[in-house]
């Protein structure tokens, strides 16, 4: 069975890209549905480890989007983020992870059209890659939970956190 959808995690700044994505939705711009959004207070909150953790946990791609340089709500957050994110992007190849799996960009709250373009282009980029390689975790909780999920009783394992 072909994989129709990939798992892409988007980390979006509350003050710009999150609004831009919202505006794109309100404007009924067609977008791929692969992206799952995590809202950040600022891209300065973006720990580079979020990117690697997501990729190692099975995400096929990670997209970070924040305010254009000079437009940060907190003046400087995206400047720090730019250095950290550029570093982590260049770091991925040593692990054998394709750097195209990760992008960061800037989209303001007013750029609904640009958001549509960014997310469409990134999703296409991820679809052009094979699914992310997985490490064999014989005792991993992922595998354990997969086995539990495959047993006949239905469980809801899709949300992390409390239910």
């Amino acid at each position: 069975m072909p994989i129709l959808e990939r798992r892409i995690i988007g980390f979006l700044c509350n003050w710009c890209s999150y609004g831009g994505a919202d505006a794109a939705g309100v404007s009924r711009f067609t977008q791929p549905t692969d992206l799952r959004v995590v809202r950040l207070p600022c891209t300065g909150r973006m720990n580079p480890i979020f990117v690697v953790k997501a990729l190692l946990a099975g995400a096929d791609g990670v997209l970070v989007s924040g305010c254009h340089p000079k437009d940060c709500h907190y003046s400087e957050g995206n400047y720090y983020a730019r250095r950290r994110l550029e570093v982590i992007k260049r770091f991925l190849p040593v692990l054998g992870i394709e750097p195209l799996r990760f992008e960061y960009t800037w989209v303001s709250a007013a750029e609904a059209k640009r958001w549509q373009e960014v997310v469409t282009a990134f999703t296409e980029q991820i679809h052009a890659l094979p699914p992310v390689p997985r490490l064999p975790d014989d005792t991993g909780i992922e595998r354990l939970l997969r086995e539990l999920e495959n047993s006949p009783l239905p469980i809801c394992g899709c949300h992390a956190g409390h239910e």
Partner: protein
Amino acid sequence: MSYFLPHDRLESWLDDLERTHRVFAPTAEGRGVVFRRRKPTAESPAAPVCLERRPTESARHVLFPRSEVLLAFRSAHDESGTRVEVFEQEAPAPQVIVGLRACDAKGFAVMDRVYMHGRYADPLYTARRKATVMAVLACVPGNGPDNACFCHWFASGHEEHDAADIVLTPASGGFLIAPVSDKGAEFMESHAGYLEQGNEELENAAAAQRLAAREFLEKHCPAPALSKTETAIMRQFGNSMLWETIGEPCLACGVCTHLCPSCYCFTITDETRGNAGARIRSWDTCLNAGYTLEASGHNPRAAKAQRLKNRIAHKFAYYPALHMGKSSCVGCGKCIRSCPVGVDIRAAVFRVLAADEE
């Protein structure tokens, strides 16, 4: 009754054991020699066994995994409502550890006293222990004792066989194999197909080799009066200057405890994802600050010197006090060999003894 296994038949003998047992054997990987499950298949043979070098790690994780799921749980719902389902581990399959050294096997004897007796016997360890045959490789000159070894302090090994079922001694182009327990004798009877009969000459040669290894140790590292260490450590327990000096170079990492054949401390963690989760038991180390961290935030062993003191005192004082004077250190030397800053547990014991004599 003894057997002889020529070198060139070692791999096929091990593959043959797979018929009835899961086989764990040392394998060279990178710079280390680690115990791995042999999984020969029709397509790919098992990685070659490495018996020429001392293993970097102990075989402890075969019976007491670094991390294991004690139970898994999930909430499930159907028409009758919601309930919690719990999944427990299945009974272990028969297994054999080949090529562990006598000190490693003695580590299991140390753990047996803790996990297999009394009201708090550990069912998972006990089940695995009973399902396991220990095939010990005897140390001989050139393949065994080095400058970090001190098993003769505890009589770990050369002629005594705590926890061992079978002993393999390198001798004239192969191994002399001798069962040393009923379990071992039974195991050998059903796996002697690849083997030749041993003879007295081989047995004598093997015994001489083992003796030579022991003599090397006695010459290199004379044993202290161990009967005095228990009281000396307890008397010096409050001598914080002494322990600070001993602990000064320690980095408080966990190399020593993680490689040790007889460290058996664990921690329990529940990890959940959505409506399902697992209760995990994983190795803990007393060198870690979190080991004694209390819920209040207070840590009775905040300093690394106190933590190293615990490790030494546990091996040489608390454990012997509970178990008929038997030390829980087996003298394998792994902690000395692999410590990044060369902390030597023997030197620490000598220091405590010297301080106590003053």
